[in-house]
């Protein structure tokens, strides 16, 4: 069976913008590019949860954004269900970014979700039913209140609900439990693992700094460092790679990213 996601040779450089100091000296060279991703390739089977681990600046968010079509790679390709078409990819993925500013704060949570549901092509009835279903799943009873009155954790729940509005096959989560209290984080992890992945055969990619969280609910682990893919596989496979049969995920991570 074809993997849901095929990533081949993704490479991305970011060139620093022209500084004012250089501009007044007529030095129009744009500086040395920073390589955010360097020839990253992997395959992901349907129904798996992949943790993307890496130090700050390793390229985790860049990878998620390229898969989500928000960023164009310099080289390489992303195929979702065998297709590289942007429209198809957009319909099949739900991105929950770290950014909590991506809502209209003067609207209510429900009004925000209704707006994005229309952009995903959902009619009013379907959108209403879906928002009701998600509100129940996330135990949200404050959807009628203005977004700027929510706590960070409440906003996070809405970011997750928006990511799930169109029932995507692949969920991309950037630090999903950041700002959630312990119980909410636990409940979210349970929801992703049991409801989305096990019961509905969805696939998820989670960028996180938390080893415990990754270990708790991910099947596969990817370690990125300075844009390069250092390891990809199950914990057993990663242990073999670093030669530590009893090493914890944290120890494996430290060995793979030593020097960063």
């Amino acid at each position, binding site marked *: 069976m074809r993997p849901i996601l095929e990533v081949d040779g993704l490479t991305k450089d970011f060139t620093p913008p022209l500084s004012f100091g250089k501009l007044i000296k007529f030095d129009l060279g744009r500086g040395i590019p920073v390589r955010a991703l360097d020839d990253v390739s992997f395959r992901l089977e349907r129904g798996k949860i992949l943790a993307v681990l890496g130090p700050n600046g390793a390229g985790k968010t860049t990878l998620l954004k390229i898969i*989500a079509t928000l*960023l164009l790679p310099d080289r390489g390709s992303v195929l979702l269900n065998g297709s590289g078409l942007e429209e198809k990819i*957009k319909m099949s993925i739900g991105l929950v*970014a770290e950014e909590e*500013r991506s*809502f209209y704060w003067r609207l209510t949570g429900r009004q925000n979700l209704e707006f*994005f549901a229309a*952009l995903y092509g959902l009619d009013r009835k379907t959108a209403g039913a879906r928002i009701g279903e998600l509100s129940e799943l996330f135990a949200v009873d404050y959807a009628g209140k203005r977004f700027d009155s929510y706590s960070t954790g409440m906003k996070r729940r809405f970011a997750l609900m928006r990511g799930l509005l169109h029932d995507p096959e692949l969920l991309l989560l950037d630090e999903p439990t950041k700002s959630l209290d312990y119980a909410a984080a636990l409940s979210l992890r349970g929801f992703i693992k049991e409801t989305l992945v096990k019961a509905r055969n969805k696939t998820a990619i989670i960028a996180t700094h938390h080893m415990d969280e990754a270990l708790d609910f991910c099947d596969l682990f990817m370690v990125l460092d300075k844009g390069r893919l250092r390891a990809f596989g199950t914990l057993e496979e990663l242990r073999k790679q670093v030669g530590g049969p009893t090493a914890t995920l944290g120890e494996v991570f430290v060995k793979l990213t030593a020097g960063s």
Partner: protein
Amino acid sequence: MCKIPLAFIKKDFLIESSYKLAFLANIFGVLISLLGYFFIDKLFGRMLVSHLEEFGVNYFSYVLLGMAFFSYVGIGLGSFSSRIQSEQAQGTLEAILLTPAGIPAILLSMALWNLIFATMDMAIYIALGIFLFKIDFTHINILSAIVILFLTVASFSGLGIISAGFIMVFKRGNPLGWIINSVEGLIGGVYFPITVLPGWLQFLAKFFPITYAIRAMELSVYKGYSLAQLAKEAGFLLLFSALLIPLSIAFFKYSVKKAKTDGSLAQY
């Protein structure tokens, strides 16, 4: 098909109506600016009589329509760039572009509320003109006025979308916005007929669509000119639209691609 534009209109209406003082302040602003021109007319209006003969009105009537129409053009068509800038600053642009809604649909929908708001603005100008300043609009040729308005919106949309493309890439310092708002206001015949200007400026004015739009609108409203009589102005506006709209959409798509390559989609 209407789902996306309606969603944007609803969203923008809800946001705008949450700022309750803004609408009243807008009416007050229009009234104050008109009063200024009303007294300028009292003082200097007679000096412009020869330049206004063609339109058959006094200076105040001319400038009221010019401003009402230019405000429509300015707000309505600066709206593409202002909406992009506002979505970038709010952090919602990435979330919008993550959806499968196409770029032309998103662009059009983003500008709709501003166009509706500008129409309300124009209605305030006209209502104040009729009820407070007793201006006579009875000679209007409604068909000509509507066609000229439509062609003006179409041709300025092209410029507006190009402005939005600049904003997408450079975030600030949109040169077209400056041209639309300053140069066109000065030489396009908004505040006075272009015959007042020196010859070389009158020649330059011929290259700006606002010149044709204002002249055609003044003549259709105050002199009741038919479309046949306004064929030259309408033809120029049509030409500007036919050239600018496809070019601007291609330019905007290129700008989005450039922002996605630079990773600057969410920056502002």
